[in-house]
């Protein structure tokens, strides 16, 4: 079949180049029309399978208590006391405007705070701030009330009275980015005389996607420019580089368009573009670049030897059809293995990129030769007559490997073993704050909220039990004390127990001794009934459910790492187990808990994908090269590169998150290409009867240069190192590292292994067999 397609490709490229070009253009255009159905999705929570326990709990919490993802807004000025009529009126206007937004479910600020007081037996649950315009006396009364109720005070204003704190709860049915955009717009319109800071998980999710994508897009373009420059310097032909670029862009458009078409035709939400997909375009560009670079360098080599364009194209296709087909097939299969991933969204990632890879393969063996055919290549040009500096350098490396294969192999394996050690050091971090480097505007805002207000994160605990039972209410109260006193990150927490305690004190003539949970259940019942008569029961709906069987503790925290979060949750589990005698059904929830599980799934997905890919690649290589030994050899450089990648991530402190975990795919995509090109050429030379001593240097001479050029040009995506977002910096660094490790794995470990095996006559005869 490959042979038939090879003949077809040769025929079409040489005899009908224009027709091939037009067909490629039209097909790419048809695929590109799918771009209008291309959807960007920033809600990472949607990507977690509905069967994951933390998502189930989280959905239950949202359904019962409304949205728990908060946006924190702080505004004020370092030098002014906000207890003045103008600032309070501004807060009133801002709160009112936010409440009117359809994107907002609820707002909690000083101006809509309830006060609960007992004045000579008169129980008052009323608005603390009665109107927009306040007299000095009213302002003083508000201040006095807050001074008597410190818990409420610290939720709404900073300790120095110079910043208001507003908690905004976006509508749970609206995307965070839309809600955040409206909140920020409202602040821009009304608070331009103040210093304004934003924070909270919803805010971060709302802004991170667009910012990271925008920055990535810009830097990818820069990377592409660098890639062009590197290719130009090495290939020394502008037309040739433009041809490579054309294949890359057509492949990219084809992949993105297909994603849109599949989404609209299947109605599946798995085919959306999220922050996790940021690596997709880079991966495809490297693969498409790889195919084209191999073809173009082969063509120039053949043209140099034959002096005939047609023959050079024919020989290039003949030589590269199988390896390019195999590299594309193995890489596509590797990505398709993501359909086995526990994270369902990875299916869209895998299928779309597999389509892109196949399209890149077809374009490399049809469009690219046709473009080459259409161009007149002067035989005296530098690109044709003289090998480049890089080409000569790689040739020298080939000779070196033949001389000291054992030393090189052992040294390489030592480096890989350092990687094995490093894997143990790898850590997971999902805190979105770590996406921003120090000095970044968003990071500054978050640090401000941590230093001056309550913090910028929240964590919830879902409690199941009889919420009218004083035993459970007392346990909740004690748990809150425990987390507030034992965890330096917790600024405050609130729950239904706080309301019951405050009502108890109020009913008992405002005696602070009664700010405790009553011992008698009838008293608790009376307090609940009293609230329903005197306050708005809706006030309690975010704290306790309709049937008093579920409650929520919300803790506001300062920024901390995922590991600290996990430790914190574990400590609470221990505390609950030891102290909660009657009720122990307490589950931590909130965006960070769910996100932590999602990253675990991304990592599991990556591991499954790596495992399945390695097995499939090995099987395909064994099948096409007709010996299981080739299957094993094919995956050695790939496995070494994967180990080195994760190992060095651990050593260098690069965290695993939903962006970096997927970069192993780049290694698989590119690593397998290099190995297959190498093996294919080695077998070819062996079957051409080349002596054992010349096979390695011959192979490196043929494929070493395109491998190094490919790796070097792909390193252009190291431009991402200049991003202001840490995951992109990591992505850039990992791209460079992946290129080094994959080319290193092929040109040292695989080359030395084959050289050493080649010296054992029986082994190599068994491997080569009939070609």
């Amino acid at each position, binding site marked *: 079949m490959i042979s038939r397609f090879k003949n077809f490709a040769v025929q079409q490229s040489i005899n009908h180049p224009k027709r091939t070009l037009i067909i490629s253009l039209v097909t790419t255009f048809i695929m590109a029309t799918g771009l209008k159905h291309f959807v960007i999705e920033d809600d990472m929570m949607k990507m977690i399978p509905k069967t994951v326990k933390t998502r189930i709990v989280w959905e239950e919490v949202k359904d019962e208590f409304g949205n728990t993802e908060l946006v924190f807004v702080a505004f004020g000025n370092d030098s002014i006391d906000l207890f003045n009529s103008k600032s309070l009126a501004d807060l009133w206007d801002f709160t009112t405007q936010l409440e009117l937004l359809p994107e907002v479910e609820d707002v909690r600020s000083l101006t809509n705070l309830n006060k609960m007081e007992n004045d000579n037996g*008169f129980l008052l*649950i009323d*608005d603390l701030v009665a109107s927009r315009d306040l007299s000095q006396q009213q302002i003083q009364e508000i201040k006095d009330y807050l001074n008597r109720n410190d818990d409420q005070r610290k939720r709404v204003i900073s300790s120095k009275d110079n910043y208001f704190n507003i908690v905004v709860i976006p509508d749970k049915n609206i995307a965070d980015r839309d809600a955040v955009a409206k909140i920020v717009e409202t602040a821009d319109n009304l608070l331009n005389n103040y210093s304004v800071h934003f924070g909270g998980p919803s805010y971060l999710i709302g802004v991170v996607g667009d910012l990271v994508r925008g920055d990535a897009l810009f830097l990818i373009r820069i990377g592409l420019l660098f890639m062009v420059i590197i290719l130009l310097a090495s290939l020394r032909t502008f037309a040739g580089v433009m041809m490579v670029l054309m294949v890359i862009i057509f492949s990219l458009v084809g992949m993105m368009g297909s994603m849109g078409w599949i989404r609209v035709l299947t109605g599946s939400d798995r085919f959306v573009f999220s922050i996790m997909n940021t690596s997709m375009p880079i991966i495809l560009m490297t693969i498409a670049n790889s195919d084209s670079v191999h073809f173009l360098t082969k063509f120039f080599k053949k043209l140099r030897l034959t002096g005939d364009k047609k023959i050079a194209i024919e020989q290039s296709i003949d030589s590269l059809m199988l390896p390019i087909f195999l590299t594309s097939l193995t890489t596509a299969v590797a990505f398709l293995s993501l359909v086995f991933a526990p994270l369902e969204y990875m299916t869209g990632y895998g299928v779309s990129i597999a389509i892109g890879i196949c399209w890149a393969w077809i374009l490399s063996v049809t469009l690219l030769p046709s473009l080459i055919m259409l161009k007149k290549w002067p035989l005296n040009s530098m690109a044709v007559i003289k090998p480049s500096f890089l080409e000569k350098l790689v040739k020298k490396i080939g000779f070196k490997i033949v001389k000291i294969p054992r030393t090189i192999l052992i040294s390489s394996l030592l480096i890989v073993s350092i990687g094995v050690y490093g894997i143990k050091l790898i850590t997971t971090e999902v805190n979105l704050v770590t996406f921003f480097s120090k000095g970044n505007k968003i990071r500054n805002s978050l640090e401000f909220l941590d230093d001056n207000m309550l913090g910028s994160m929240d964590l919830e605990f879902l409690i199941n039990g009889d919420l009218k039972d004083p035993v459970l209410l007392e346990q909740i109260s004690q748990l809150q004390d425990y987390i507030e006193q034992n965890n330096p990150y917790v600024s405050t927490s609130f729950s239904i127990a706080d309301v019951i305690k405050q009502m108890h004190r109020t009913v*008992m003539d405002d005696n602070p001794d009664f700010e405790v949970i009553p011992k008698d259940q009838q008293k608790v*019942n009376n307090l609940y009934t*009293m609230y329903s008569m005197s306050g708005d*029961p809706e006030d309690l709906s975010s704290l306790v459910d309709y049937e008093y069987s579920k409650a929520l503790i919300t803790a506001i925290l300062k920024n901390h790492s995922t590991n600290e979060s996990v430790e914190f949750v574990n400590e609470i589990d221990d505390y609950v187990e030891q102290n909660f005698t009657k009720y122990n059904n307490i589950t931590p929830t909130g965006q960070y808990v769910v996100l932590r599980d999602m990253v675990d799934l991304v990592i599991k997905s990556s591991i499954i994908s790596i495992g399945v890919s390695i097995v499939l690649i090995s099987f395909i290589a064994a099948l096409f090269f007709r010996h299981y030994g080739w299957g094993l050899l094919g995956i050695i450089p790939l496995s070494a590169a994967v180990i080195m990648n994760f190992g060095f991530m651990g050593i260098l402190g690069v965290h695993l998150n939903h962006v970096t975990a997927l970069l192993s795919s780049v290694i698989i995509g590119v690593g397998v290409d290099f190995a297959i090109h190498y093996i294919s050429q080695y077998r070819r030379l062996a079957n051409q009867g080349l002596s054992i001593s010349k096979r390695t240097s011959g192979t490196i001479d043929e494929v070493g240069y395109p491998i190094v050029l490919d790796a070097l040009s792909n390193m252009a995506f190291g431009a991402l190192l200049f991003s202001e977002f840490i995951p992109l910096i990591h992505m850039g660094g990992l791209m460079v590292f992946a290129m080094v490790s994959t080319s290193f794995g092929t040109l040292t470990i695989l080359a030395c292994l084959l050289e050493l095996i080649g010296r054992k006559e029986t082994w190599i005869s068994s491997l080569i067999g009939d070609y």
Partner: protein
Amino acid sequence: MKNPFRILTLFLSIIYAQNGLEIATMVDERDVPKDIISKTTMLLTNRKGKTRTSTILSKSSNNGSKQILWFLAPLDDKGVAFLKIEHDNKADEMRMWLPAFKKVRRISSSKKGDSFMGSDLSYEDMTSRSLEENRYKRLEDETLDGKDCFVLEVLPNEDIKSTYSKHITWIVKESLIAVKEESYDLGGGLRKKKKFFIDSISDYHVINKIFVEDVQKNHTTTLTMEDIKVDSGLDHSLFQEKNLKRLPRN
């Protein structure tokens, strides 16, 4: 026998076209019982279909401006009692008996939009609507369940700080009693739909069931009044704090 002059006035005013205020005045002036005693079952249903049921013994006079309630069920609330006395020129008086604390507490009524007993009726909904505090506009008459109705648009005056921007009320021409109402929030969006079911007791048209739906919160309240007694001669001294502590036998 009711005053024949009033009946004649009513009859004549129905025949001749009235404006909104005239209709509202007729409704305001219709005959109502001096006092009402009922056993009310309140069924609350939230958006998820979960329910809460309470049974209350209610005694009221002066068209509901004085009211005393005792919770009979559920068991958790039994014995809790509530007294409300509306005043024209000062804040309404509301007191609550908390049997577990053995204390009576006066509670606030200043937030008109707050829910009454956790229901979809707010204190504002429960308070008689004063003619002077609203503007009335007559809309085109409609037929509702086979009964001819006036349709009034009621616009609260700005100075009364209502939580509503307007109400549309359907009033049966024959009985001059409202059977349906839609209330709109300050942003102009539909907030509540109310339905009133009427029974005739001792020549009075008395509401025996109220259904309220808060369309924004997707929450409903059904109040069903049973054992309704009218004009039983309730003594004004009943509406005192001391009576909250004793759950009456009937």
